């Protein structure tokens, strides 16, 4: 094939290590197949800001589009326009409609493939890890960014659903911190001040985890209170080592990006691709953080 | 002396600002066709008095009667609706609007565009601006320019023009000539005379005794928040008034 394909990747937001790592993976794949990667996104995880970016990308008619849609419903119409314009679409990290594509059912089944680590599942994994760490009893809560972000909402949901299977664990109110680590810390301290038997916390994204673990530190509860972090950028490694964070659920963003580009390329070169590729998770803790097999899932710096 | 029923009667009005008794138990009567001068040294309470009458401040205590009926203005709008127009010492113009828009502020003239759509009648505003300013012999061409572009005296003329324009029963003028040139001052004096002849009531605040003696029927002198004395103008002279003002 001598045509140089242009493949666009639109993340949920640009200012996030997760997506930056995804970009690295995508770039590696693009280089491998000789495609050009366009990376464009909005600074906030919100359809209002993502859709204009999408439109501007569509205007340049890329050969394929990889996107992390910021909402399951709201991105259907805007993506339909791209699809109608003949641009093959693959969703990464998040999905539209039900996430089951090419079934002929539902409004949002037109993308070719969904490549991700399922966030609901990720939440459930976090719940299991936390439950084990606290001896399957006690109080825990979710520290979350803000309502309305599909990925983090799903992690919370997966966490809570899983915890229903652990009758001795009480899940307290979720706290929203607006990506402000300072607020997340103070919320943890307030919850702890009220519930001296608080056993653990699930930080549903980087700043939630960073803040919560600092709250644990401020409360003098390092080691006694367990912190599970979602996402694994470099700073989490330090926290794992220093015991501030007990476990990190690493998604595999580089893989997602890599497979995304590869799948798009395969499609463009006439091959069929699976409608769903799960990239899974790696649970990283103090014990395995140095192990190269897990360490490779630390997000790129 | 004019013995008609009073247009405006102020009874035992007080107004305090925290601990400052700016006005303490002051009374005043204005009859139709009468010009009452309100005099007094700086800080005597003149502006406070007329702001209480025109609805700017609620008085701390006291009564205001308009044509015999007690009134209580909760805003200057109320006072204007009852026929009291005021020229404030600090002019109170909307600096970003044209002269015409200031004259009509709060009562803008409307016309119908395309026969049905009510729109501001800017022509009428400009015309009012031209005519009213001409009353004081200002011949203004910049009818769209904001009043901030005009000189101190020109701005004072706008404030005077606005108050006169609305043909009120009672006109309150707080140092209306302070910034005016000599010919314009004369114009204002003759304007007040013509208002008087139309049976209107006028409260005229000024530090210029000549002007006061030229137009007023009575003079009420305030001193440190209280009425130091009230005289018919024919019964008094500059010296006595100054004495009342400064006390001693």
């Amino acid at each position, binding site marked *: 094939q001598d045509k140089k394909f242009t493949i666009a990747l639109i993340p949920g937001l640009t200012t996030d290590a997760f997506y930056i790592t995804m970009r690295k993976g995508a770039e590696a794949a693009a280089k491998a197949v000789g495609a050009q990667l366009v990376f*464009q996104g909005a600074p906030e995880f*919100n359809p*209002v800001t993502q859709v*204009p*970016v999408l*439109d*501007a*990308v*569509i*205007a*340049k008619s890329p050969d394929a589009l990889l996107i992390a849609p910021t*909402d*399951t*419903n*709201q*991105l259907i*119409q805007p993506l339909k326009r791209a699809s109608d314009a003949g641009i093959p679409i693959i969703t990464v990290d998040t999905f539209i409609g039900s996430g089951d594509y090419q079934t002929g059912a539902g409004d949002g089944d037109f993308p070719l493939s969904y490549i991700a680590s399922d966030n609901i599942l990720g939440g459930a994994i976090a719940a299991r890890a936390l439950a084990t760490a606290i001896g399957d009893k006690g109080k825990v809560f979710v520290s979350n960014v803000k*309502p*309305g972000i599909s990925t983090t*909402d799903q992690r919370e949901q997966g966490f809570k659903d899983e915890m229903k299977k652990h009758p001795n664990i009480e899940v307290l109110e979720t706290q929203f911190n607006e990506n402000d680590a300072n607020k997340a810390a103070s919320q943890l301290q307030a919850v702890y001040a009220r519930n001296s038997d608080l056993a653990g916390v699930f930080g549903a994204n980087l700043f939630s985890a960073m803040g919560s673990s600092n709250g644990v530190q401020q409360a003098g509860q390092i080691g006694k209170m367990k912190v599970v972090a979602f996402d694994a950028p470099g700073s989490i490694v330090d926290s794992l080592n220093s015991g501030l964070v007990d476990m990190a659920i690493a998604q595999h963003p580089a893989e997602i990006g890599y497979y995304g580009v590869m799948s798009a390329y395969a499609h463009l070169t006439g091959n069929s691709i699976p409608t769903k590729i799960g990239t899974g998770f790696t649970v990283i803790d103090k014990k395995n953080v140095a192990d190269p097999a897990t360490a490779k899932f630390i997000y790129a710096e | 002396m004019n013995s008609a029923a009073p247009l405006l009667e102020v009874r035992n009005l007080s107004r305090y600002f925290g601990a400052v008794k700016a006005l303490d138990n002051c009374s005043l009567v204005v009859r139709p066709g009468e010009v009452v001068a309100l005099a007094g040294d700086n800080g005597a309470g003149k502006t406070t008095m007329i702001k209480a009458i025109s609805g700017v401040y609620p008085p701390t205590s006291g009564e205001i009667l308009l044509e015999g009926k007690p009134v209580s203005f909760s805003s*200057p*709008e109320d006072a*204007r*609706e009852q026929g009291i127009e005021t020229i404030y010492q600090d*002019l*109170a*113009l*909307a*600096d*970003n*609007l044209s002269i015409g*828009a*200031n004259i009509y*502020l*709060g009562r*803008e003239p*409307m016309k119908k565009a395309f026969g049905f*759509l009510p*729109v*501001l009648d800017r022509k009428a505003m400009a015309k009012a601006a031209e*005519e*009213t*300013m*001409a*009353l004081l*012999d*200002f*011949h*203004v*061409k910049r009818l769209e320019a*904001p009043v901030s*572009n005009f000189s101190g005296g*020109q701005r004072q*003329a706008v404030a005077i023009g606005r108050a006169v324009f609305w*043909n009120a029963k009672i006109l309150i003028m707080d140092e209306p000539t302070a910034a005016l040139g000599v*010919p314009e001052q*004369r114009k204002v004096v*003759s304007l007040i005379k*013509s208002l008087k002849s*139309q049976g209107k009531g006028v409260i005229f605040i000024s530090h210029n005794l000549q002007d006061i003696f030229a137009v007023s029927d009575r003079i009420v002198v305030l001193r440190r928040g209280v009425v130091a004395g009230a005289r018919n103008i024919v019964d008094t002279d500059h010296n006595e008034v100054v004495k009342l003002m400064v006390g001693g």
Partner: protein
Amino acid sequence: MVEQANPTSASHVAPQADHADVSKTVIQKIAQLRAWVFLAALLVVFELWARIDFGGTFVGSSFNWRSVAIFAVAPLLLAIGQTFVIISGGIDLSAGFIMGLAAVVAAHAINMLGVYMPLPIAMVLGICIAVAAAVIPGTINGLLISQLKVPPFIGTLGMFGVARGSAFLLAGGTTVPVKNSYLAELGNGQVLGLPYLVIVAAIVVVVMHYLLSQTRFGQHNYAIGANAQAARRAGVDIKRHLLRLYILSAICAGIGGALYAARFTAGAAQAGEPLLLDSVAAVVIGGASLFGGSGTIVGTIAGALVIAVIQYGLVFMNVEPFWQFIAVGVVIIISVLIDQAQRRFSGAKQDE
């Protein structure tokens, strides 16, 4: 008018108050349009850039025009309401979440009504209900600011929280999908190449332009912004005005929310959250001062378009995302620098 037959004008030759050249110079007229001039310059830059960079066109693509227009609709609607508020010397921080609240209400209402009545009627009624729902926080804003003299920043910041919480509660913390094909058509369809969204926004713009430039309400708004004390003394009922003003801003946000639900076929509490700064910036780039007393709808449109064009254009030109932040910042500053230069040049009112 006092009947005074211009009597005493005899004695002296009237001094002309005005030794000015009355006609506005051409330059001054252009200067008033400065946000538009800047917009034009921006388009030229992007066009040249597109041609040189990849031999394409920016301005020549109707797709780009439509995309930018649709992009600008939501921030513009908020900015229109904000224009009124800012001219009056206030600010409305809550507009974004009022928009979100309206979007959620629209979604619920249209879904529920759709069960009982034909879809088009459900749509229209649902939109009305959404706008009515927006009026509630607008009224509270207005009452707080007019009756209780709460500073607008604080009153609407409080309402920011209240509207946000209510919207998320109503939405159950998620987005609320709407099923109504007419609504989806309103949000995504077009007639003669003109998206319905843009048509609705244009109608709102025209009505609001009329309201601001041709009515007493508009006139009082300017007066209050310049000198609230003077306006009050002139007999403007400031309390009533402020109440209506914040309701007006909420209505604009409410329409924005309903259109959001139409476009994305879902209501989301966070719909307007990212639009706050951009909408205020549109107003200021359009020539308004945050101290009140100046601004126009026409300017705000240009301001909103400037922002939409830069943001869209930089993506179109494939500028690196982090460099986009910098570029948008620089362009916003330049847009106002040009204003300063024009003022100096045209003799318009300058600071001393």
